[in-house]
């Protein structure tokens, strides 16, 4: 296939042009692009806040920004990254693009709802950006009451409205995925032939649908107390401040799994492809995703071991938190076993996947410290926690997201990115990430509390290391932004299946036609049949016609 052939063939990108064709599209692949552009924007906004935080922490004194500004920076960093980047990133970009393609469907079950979810997302984003532009919010992304509901003098209500609205886009996306996966699988695509990416998105969708309404209600209650002084959380008005924490973490702990389960799905695809093996213990990995989603709803109280909740409640939440660690451990062991006797290549997506396993392992193992009651009391609300969840959310989710973007980039654009640059970027990100966040484990254990604008001088050396790492990390993140944009025009033409991968999405041209497949495939093999020829996994590859 040569360049002119790609350009001439009609596909979802060139089927029509103009701003209306994008803003009114119901094609899941185009909506994925709308999300890709939006979450990328939010990622760099959130990254800008992070940059200022790290620069401030270079010295123990509060010399770069004032305390109020610093508090707003870490709040807006958290709000932007969690609600506007991490939660939508893999599901709304890669999930949107791939869920229908992987199961052999033409689109999601509700294409217009899908477009609506993007508009809702943007509307929520507009509120949040407005709140930032109007002066910001300083409650921390956790909005603990009664600080958020009574005492803060910043734009809490506006921010809360933004998150409330955005939540509905998550609910709609989850609903769409659940219905699509149930009802629109191609003939022969049985549940246990589904790629693990689909299982992971199914588990994520359950959390979207069941968890998101709770945070929405909780934030409405905060706004009601703030506007009308209804006594819900402030004891001075007859409320209970700890009630807020229960409600908040009932969503926000499962939300961690919203952020990491899809990345686990991506990693399963990458490990299988670049070692040319079936994923070891496929059904165990699939059920581990569901197990995480279900048990994940029962562990919220581990955020509250020092909140004043009863000692016995603490013990139950600790026990359940250890139980939720087991399926994650099983996944790591299964991915590692998948490499055994494989045929392993080190393309950039694989480097991201291996990086994911390494960083997620550290993030997961340090989670055990936090589940252990006697240790959590000491490290709770310190930099140990910050390091732990950045290992999961950045080391895990962002690595998975970038690995996925690189892997499916040829499918989405029809072009290949420059492999050498991509490997270099993966390496820089891995090194920069560890230098940024590993010192924070030590900082936490020696007692540096989180959200401190000024800190005692003995913490400085480790903070300088962390800031140095962050500058490397920033370079690592700017590289893909540059070469991926470059590749849109100058990248070599990818072809249908540049990785020799298995999966229906690779059996259709790159970029795919609007209807995804030339004809409805009948699936004849389970996922990851790398021992078979690509044509053998479905009827698509077979010459029904010329």
């Amino acid at each position, binding site marked *: 296939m040569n360049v002119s052939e790609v350009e001439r063939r009609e596909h979802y990108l060139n089927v029509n042009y103009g701003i209306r064709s994008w803003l009114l599209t119901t094609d899941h692949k185009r909506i994925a692009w709308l999300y890709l552009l939006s979450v990328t924007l939010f990622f760099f906004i959130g990254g800008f806040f992070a940059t200022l935080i790290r620069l401030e922490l270079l010295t123990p004194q509060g010399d770069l920004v004032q305390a109020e500004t610093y508090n707003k920076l870490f709040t807006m960093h958290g709000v932007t990254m969690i609600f506007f980047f991490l939660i939508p990133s893999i599901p709304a970009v890669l999930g949107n693009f791939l869920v229908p393609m992987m199961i052999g469907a033409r689109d999601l079950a509700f294409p217009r709802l899908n477009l609506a979810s993007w508009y809702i997302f943007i509307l929520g984003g507009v509120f949040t950006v407005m709140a930032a532009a109007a002066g910001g919010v300083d409650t921390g992304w956790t909005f603990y009451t*009664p600080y958020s509901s009574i005492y*803060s003098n910043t734009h809490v209500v506006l921010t809360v409205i933004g998150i409330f609205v955005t939540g509905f886009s998550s609910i709609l996306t989850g609903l769409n995925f659940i219905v699509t996966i149930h009802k629109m699988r191609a003939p022969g695509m049985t549940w246990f032939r589904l790629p693990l990416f689909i299982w992971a998105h199914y588990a994520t969708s359950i959390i979207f649908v069941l968890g998101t309404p709770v945070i929405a209600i909780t934030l409405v209650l905060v706004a009601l107390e703030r506007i009308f002084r209804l006594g819900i959380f402030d004891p001075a008005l007859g409320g209970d401040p700890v009630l807020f924490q229960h409600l908040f973490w009932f969503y926000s702990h499962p939300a961690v799994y919203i952020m990491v389960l899809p990345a686990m799905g991506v990693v399963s695809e990458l490990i299988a492809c670049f070692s040319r093996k079936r994923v070891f213990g496929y*059904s165990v990995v699939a059920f581990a995703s569901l197990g995480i989603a279900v048990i994940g709803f029962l562990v919220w109280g581990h955020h509250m071991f020092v909140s004043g909740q009863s000692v016995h409640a603490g013990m139950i939440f600790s026990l359940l938190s250890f139980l939720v*660690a087991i399926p994650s451990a099983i996944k790591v062991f299964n991915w590692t076993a998948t490499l*055994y006797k*494989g045929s*392993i290549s080190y393309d950039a997506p694989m480097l991201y996947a291996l990086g994911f396993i390494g960083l997620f392992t550290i993030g997961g193992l340090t989670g055990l410290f936090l589940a252990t*009651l*006697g240790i959590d009391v000491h490290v709770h609300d310190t930099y140990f926690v910050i390091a732990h969840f950045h290992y999961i959310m950045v080391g895990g989710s962002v690595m998975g997201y970038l690995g996925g973007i690189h892997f499916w980039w040829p499918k989405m654009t029809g072009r290949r990115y420059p492999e050498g640059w991509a490997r270099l970027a993966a390496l820089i990100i891995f090194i920069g990430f560890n230098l940024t966040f590993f010192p924070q484990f030590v900082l936490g254990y020696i007692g540096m509390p989180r959200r401190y604008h000024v800190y005692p001088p003995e913490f400085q050396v480790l903070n300088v290391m962390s800031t140095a790492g962050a500058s490397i990390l920033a370079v690592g993140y700017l590289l893909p932004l540059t070469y991926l944009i470059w590749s849109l025009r100058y990248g070599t033409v990818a072809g249908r299946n540049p990785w020799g991968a298995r999966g229906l999405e690779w059996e259709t041209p790159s970029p795919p036609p609007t209807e995804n497949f030339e004809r409805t495939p009948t699936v004849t093999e389970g996922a990851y*049949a790398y021992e078979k020829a690509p044509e053998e996994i479905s009827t698509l590859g077979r010459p029904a016609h010329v």
Partner: protein
Amino acid sequence: MILGFPLFPEQASTMAARVDALFYFLVAVTVFFAALIFFMIVVFAVKYRRRSEDERPRPIEGNFWLEILWSAIPLGLTMVMFVWGAIIYFDIYNPPNDALEISIVGRQWMWKAQHAEGQREINELHVPVGQAVKLTMTSEDVIHDVFLPAFRIKQDVLPGRYTTLWFQATKAGEYPLFCAQYCGTQHSGMVGRVVVLEPAEFEKWLSGGATGVSMIDQGASLFKRFGCETCHGAGGTSQGPSLAGLFGKTVKLQEGTTVTADENYIRESILDPRAKIVAGYQPIMPTFKGLVSEEGLLQLIAYIKSLEGAERKAAQK
């Protein structure tokens, strides 16, 4: 401090060494598993690197016994962590009965402490070495948190109720006190220090510069000033139950349930008297919300705690 910065915080309480021992256990287990995973990934990635483009490895579906093995071993190890951690946690939140009691009130952005003898401190806490100290804490505004890294403990300080924390310092010296729960603009300025003194030094500190009026006496005068005596005086009246010997006892309530008369119960009964009506009494007590400060409440509680039961007094005679 070989590196020019500390890798571990000082151990200055009876809890510190216990927490650190558990921490080392977890470090050992997690470093072992992380090393195992990294080692296997590196070995597999090198050994099974793609040598030719047309390699087609034999598929391996999985292995039931391996799955059982690598579920059971982590499960067993985490249960050890759970039990060990839970025992320490239980001890962190169960103060011994003979602990020295100190009241803490947090507010944006300072810590106020008052000793039983009446001494007040701000952003400082003087305690004796070798004796258990129990902090009874509340906040005047938002949630704060007392974090003492050298003692390996912390506890949120909530508005509207009391939480407690205890420790026994093992080494004289000065240790940092941080607010660990984000509480607004000057959160990182809400820091102080714990000064651990030798017992003799501590006695000297207690007697020096004191107001001379103990918390119990301050509570007694508040008790008089608010007219509590009218109904709750010695022996009680038909309007209100006697408070003598009340603290720590089980109280029968009108709706048939019972409640233990602890600090939070007494606090609630002063601020919201209708929340729990003692069996046999009418809900006629007015609220003292807004009339009595957080410090005043703690003094009143100290006074009520000091009231010996009539029966006990009689027995002593």
